[in-house]
């Protein structure tokens, strides 16, 4: 008969296993904090890029804001906007799409709807891309 029983191997293994299971989520929380920070930065930079593209289009005279859809290969620093002499000025490279639509009333363009879509990588290691779109309207003030 055992009068003094010690801790058996099985018990120790189970204890360590439990401890590991409890600690794992704690470490996951820490690493998710870092990942969120990285994601915020990526989003901030992409957002900044989108505003930059939008601002330069809406600051043009109304008749030079030419309607159309411009894909990522058109919207690059130094390229021409809508085949005109006006050039894009973009500080950071992102995959972006620009769309300008006419809003007409009685055959006359009264508004232009400008939307910019920017795609970005959320974190350095993730393969999936995120994107967001910002939109605004420009009024025809010439008449």
């Amino acid at each position: 008969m055992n009068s003094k029983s010690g801790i058996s191997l099985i018990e120790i293994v189970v204890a360590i296993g439990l401890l590991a299971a409890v600690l794992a989520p704690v470490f996951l929380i820490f690493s998710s904090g870092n990942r969120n920070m990285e994601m915020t930065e990526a989003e901030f930079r992409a957002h900044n890029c989108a505003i930059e593209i939008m601002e330069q289009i809406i600051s043009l005279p109304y008749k030079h804001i030419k309607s159309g859809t411009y894909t990522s290969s058109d919207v690059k620093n130094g390229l021409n906007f809508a085949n005109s002499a006006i050039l894009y000025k973009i500080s950071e490279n992102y995959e972006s799409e620009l769309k300008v639509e006419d809003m007409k009333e009685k055959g006359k363009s009264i508004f232009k709807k400008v939307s910019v879509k920017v795609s970005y990588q959320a974190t350095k290691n993730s393969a999936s891309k995120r994107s967001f779109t910002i939109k605004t309207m420009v009024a025809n003030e010439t008449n």
Partner: protein
Amino acid sequence: MKQTKKAFTLVEIIVVSAISAVFITTVVMLLINFRKGYSKSEYSGILMQETALLIAHLRTDLNNAVDKQIYTSENQLMFNAYNNSKGITEPIVYTLEKAPQGRILTRKEGNGKARTIVKSNVASLTWQTSLDVYETKPVPVKRLSIDLDILLEAPNMPEKSFRLRSAIFPNRVNKQIN
């Protein structure tokens, strides 16, 4: 055959210490990795927020700028802007000032008090105005822009930094000059 005291066998002890060694190593490695990541991101959040605040201020102010005279020097950016809430035009001045921990950036509106926008060390900041003229028909299009290059550093820790490059196209001014 009576066993009164049961002890661990050598095999048991070896197995347990091997398991705990693996476990402890994993935990310590995780901790070290976490410390590394934490100290890296500790300031990047603050610096990012300050950059975001600065660029948001500059965007709003410059979009309300009504005078094409935008004065820039190494330490100052000055222009007249329309204040929506007051309904008047007043000068807005951004100044880089020396502080014990490096350089800070302040913003002054009209006759108000200068308020600090960036508290961290502004390691380098360029605000270059440029006027591009495009040969469009029938009249050339002019476009004024302010190119920004901001580099913020954590005080006394130059290895922690945040850099942003961008351009601002003041809306009202661009409508005026065309």
